[in-house]
C-alpha cells in the first residue's frame, strides 16, 4: 500500500499527463492541499516511486524559463495507476459513514 504523499504525487502526475515534472507536480500538490511541498520530499518520494516501479522519470530538454535547465519528466506506470486506485478505494471504504463524509458532527 502506498502512502498519502505518494498518492498525491501519483494523482497529480496522472492529471498533468505529459506536463508532469517536478515544478508542476509540486504546484498541483500545494494548490490541492494548501500546504507547502518541499523539493526534498518531492524528489526523494519520486525516487522511491521509481524504485517501486510506479513511475518512470527521464530528463527533458532544457528550456529558457528554467534558466536553460532540464525538467525531470514523470510518467505513471500501469502498476502505479493500480496502486493509486487501490489506495483511493481503501480510503473511500474506510471513510464511509465518517462524520466528514455525511456532514454530521460528532462530540
Amino acid at each position, binding site marked *: 500500500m502506498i502512502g498519502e504523499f505518494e498518492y498525491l504525487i501519483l494523482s497529480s502526475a496522472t492529471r498533468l499527463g505529459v506536463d508532469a*515534472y*517536478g*515544478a508542476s507536480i*509540486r*504546484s498541483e500538490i500545494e494548490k490541492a492541499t494548501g500546504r507547502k511541498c*518541499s*523539493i*526534498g*520530499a518531492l*524528489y*526523494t518520494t519520486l525516487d522511491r516511486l521509481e524504485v517501486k516501479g510506479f513511475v518512470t522519470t527521464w*530528463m527533458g530538454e*532544457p*528550456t529558457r*524559463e*528554467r*534558466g536553460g*535547465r*532540464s*525538467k*525531470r519528466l514523470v510518467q505513471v506506470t500501469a502498476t502505479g495507476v493500480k496502486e493509486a486506485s487501490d489506495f483511493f478505494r481503501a480510503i473511500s471504504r474506510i471513510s464511509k459513514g465518517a462524520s466528514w463524509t455525511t456532514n454530521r458532527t460528532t462530540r
Partner: protein
Amino acid sequence: MISPKSWAVALWLSRSLCQADREPVLGDLTESGESGGGAIADILGLVVRRWTTGLFDMRVWFAVGSLILPISYLLSAIAQNTAGIGAVYSWMYLNNWDWALTRNPGFWHVLRETAIYYGIACLVLACWSWSGGFLIGRLPNATLRASRIAFIVLLAASFLVDVRGRLIQFWTSSHGVPLGPALPDVHAPITANVFYHLFFPWIVLAMLVILPGFSGIWHGNRSLVLERKIRVVLATAATISVLILLIHVPGVELLFGAAVREWLWRNRSAMQVLHYCPVGRCSMWLRMASGVIGGVTLLWCNKRGDRKGDRQCVKR
C-alpha cells in the same frame, strides 16, 4: 525572485547533489520564482534527505562493518606508528642540528640509512592506504558517498580515540595478563613539543593515508572500465595487501591463534611484494604516459628530420 547572493549560496549547496538531482531542482526553483531563503531551505532539505537516505541503506552499514571500519582502524594504527617514528627522527635531526656533525662520515651513513628506512615505511603506508581505498572504491556506487564519509570519519575517530591502545588494554585485561609498572616516557622531550604532539600525526594521516586512500577509492570506482584480468589482479593484490596489514598492527595479531601468527610472520616477506601493487599501477600509467610522450617526440623528430632532409634535397 532570488537575489544573486542567495542564488550563489543555493548553487554552492547544490554542488553536493548529484547531476541528476541538481539540474531539475535548480530548474524548478528558477521556474517557480522561489524566494532566496526558500530556495536555500529547499536545496538544504534535499541534501539532508539524500544523506539520511544513505544512512538507512543496509549495504552502507554492511560495508562499514565488514570493510571500512577494519581498514580505517588498521591504517590509522600504522599511521600513528609511522608518525611516531617520523617525529623521533625529525626531532633528532631538525631540533638538534649541529653543523659539526656534518664533518663526521658516520653521521651521513646513518642519515642515509634512516632516510631510506623511513622513506620505505612512508611508501608502504601510502600503498596500503591506496589498496584499502581501492577496495572501498569497488563498493556499489549508491553506497560510495556514504562510504567515503565513513572512511574519513572512522580514520579520524581511530586516531583521536587511540583504538589501538584501548584494544591492547582490553586484550590484556580480558586474558588476565598482569600489567607491568608504568615505564618512564623516553620520548618526553618530543611529546612536549606541540608540533610533534599535535600537528605532525595529522599531517602524516592526511598525506600518507587520506590522500592515497581517496586516490585508491577513485581508481577502484573507475576500475570497471579496465580489462577483467587487470581488475581481478588489482583487486586480489589490494585484498592480500590489506590482509598483510593485520600482522603489522601491534595488538591485532593477538586476536589470532599462535599457529596463524607464526605462519603469517614466516610468510610475510613473500607477501611483502604485494604492498607495492599501487606503485606498479602508477608505473603502468607512467609507462603509458612516457610511451605516448616518446611516440609524439619520435614523430616530431621524424617530421623535423624529413623537413631537414627535404631542405637538403632542395639545396642539392
